[in-house]
């Protein structure tokens, strides 16, 4: 049973560029949440997708956007990258019947130079 997978593992971008991160949920899960984890901090909620729509959103600017596909996989897009966007981006999947029981992927480490 495959767990949550994310790609790429690491990414280096420069300020002003755009980035797309990808996530495949755990088998049987239909809900995907994205989190940003700065060094030494706990994860911060960005948004959650279910049935290809954004279900909830945290306190992140519109530069952060997402998408969910019919196969439940998801993408996180960040435009106009800032140095402060450097972080570990985590994807978590869950079932809509138990949306709080979230299982995390290994994350994508984004470095903005």
């Amino acid at each position, binding site marked *: 049973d495959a767990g*949550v997978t*994310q790609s790429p593992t690491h990414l280096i971008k420069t300020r002003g560029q755009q980035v797309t991160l990808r996530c495949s949920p755990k088998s049987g899960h239909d809900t995907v*949440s994205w989190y940003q984890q*700065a*060094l*030494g*901090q*706990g*994860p*911060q*909620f960005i948004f*959650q997708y279910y049935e290809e729509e954004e*279900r*909830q959103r*945290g306190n992140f600017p519109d530069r952060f956007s997402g998408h969910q596909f019919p196969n439940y996989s998801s993408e996180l897009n960040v435009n106009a990258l800032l140095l402060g966007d450097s972080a570990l981006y*985590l994807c*978590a999947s869950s079932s809509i019947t138990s*949306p*709080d*029981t*979230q*299982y*995390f*992927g*290994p*994350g994508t480490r984004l470095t903005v130079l």
Partner: protein
Amino acid sequence: GESVGLHLPTLSVQEGDNSIINCAYSNSASDYFIWYKQESGKGPQFIIDIRSNMDKRQGQRVTVLLNKTVKHLSLQIAATQPGDSAVYFCAETPDTPLVFGKGTRLSVIA
């Protein structure tokens, strides 16, 4: 200067001893709590959860205690092993999304 967030509380225990990691949560409306373990360079790993209608829940070598009166959560690890070394986060939710605490670094001394 350095970010305060970089200085995680640290708990050092001898291998074989029991560990207790504490967490104060913020929202009295939270009704579901999860403990996660995060090893260096990896995503958080689900350890154990508890709902607010319970005071205690046990798993394999782990026990979570919930005190709603003082909004306190604890994770007890029995017979701590070197592989338990990691950062531990508690997370709460009255509804999605999860809200994470600052984390505690557990260091196991062999």
